């Protein structure tokens, strides 16, 4: 009896990081309201973070490779699609954030969308799914998205 015969499902989590700056500002609100809502995060010059992003891939262990996803493949994909575009960038200048405030919540949703959309570029992970994106803004603040319907609308509408 080997593990391979049963193909147990595991969750594999890989951790990456990038640095970026942002400014939290909602154009439909008055300047005073922005300052009240976002505080220091509304400072006009923006500010930066070292973001840590974790991707969790869930799926069966391939009996031939012993893997749920080929790590080299995943690393290259994340490097190209997520880290390169965002690293050392001003998030507000990114096309996705022209009408969306680049809070870490919205950035977490955006990374989930990017990874989900490009999933076909991961041939080794076609039996697996994206289980979770976790995005850490600081060691004290982090956000997780698992793709439930409640968070799918990336729209500029306010609370």
């Amino acid at each position, binding site marked *: 009896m080997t593990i391979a015969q049963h193909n147990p499902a595991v969750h594999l989590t890989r951790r990456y990081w990038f640095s970026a700056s942002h400014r939290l500002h909602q154009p439909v609100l008055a300047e005073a309201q922005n300052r009240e809502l976002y505080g220091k995060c509304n400072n006009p010059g923006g500010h930066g973070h070292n973001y840590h992003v974790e991707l969790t891939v869930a799926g069966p262990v391939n009996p031939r490779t*012993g893997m749920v996803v080929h*790590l080299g493949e995943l690393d290259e994909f994340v490097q190209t699609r997520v880290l390169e575009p965002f690293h050392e960038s001003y998030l507000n200048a990114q096309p996705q954030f022209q009408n969306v405030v680049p809070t870490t919540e919205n950035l977490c949703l955006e990374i989930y969308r990017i990874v989900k959309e490009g999933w076909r570029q991961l041939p080794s992970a076609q039996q697996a799914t994206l289980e979770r994106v976790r995005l850490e803004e600081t060691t004290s603040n982090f956000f997780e998205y698992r793709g439930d319907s409640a968070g799918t609308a990336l729209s500029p509408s306010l609370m």
Partner: protein
Amino acid sequence: MIYLTRRAEFSASHYYHSPAFSPEENRRLFGKCNNPHGHGHNYVLEVTVRGPIDARSGMVVDLKQLKEVLRQEVIEVLDHRFLNEEVPAFHHLIPTTENLAVEIWRMLEPKLQFCELHRVRLYETPDLYVDYFGMQPTASTGAAGKQEKELTAGR
């Protein structure tokens, strides 16, 4: 229901190689991990058990007992070992972190009769870890899950 997690560490070496592939395929698929002399990691294992809080002790599990099972069933078997050659389960199974997490579940689960194993989390490095929750009984795998349970118990 409350969840308790105990952490333990062990160091071991391994290499990735499948006899199902040619030497070239092995090198292409596994890269540096295919180096036959192997390489090592400081693995960090987190074992999560769950259950109700015992009204008299205020505990979900006797920590000393859990620590002893971890030491005897996992750490003693894996610590400072060359996994491919010294751990029988990996004579015919590639010791990826995925397979190692599943194997640790199998080593522990039958010995944890005094509590319920919820999750095995195994860090290969701080940037890479695998979670295993046992065979999940779903509509399509329910029968396999039951069979797995019986086989594990019989080992």
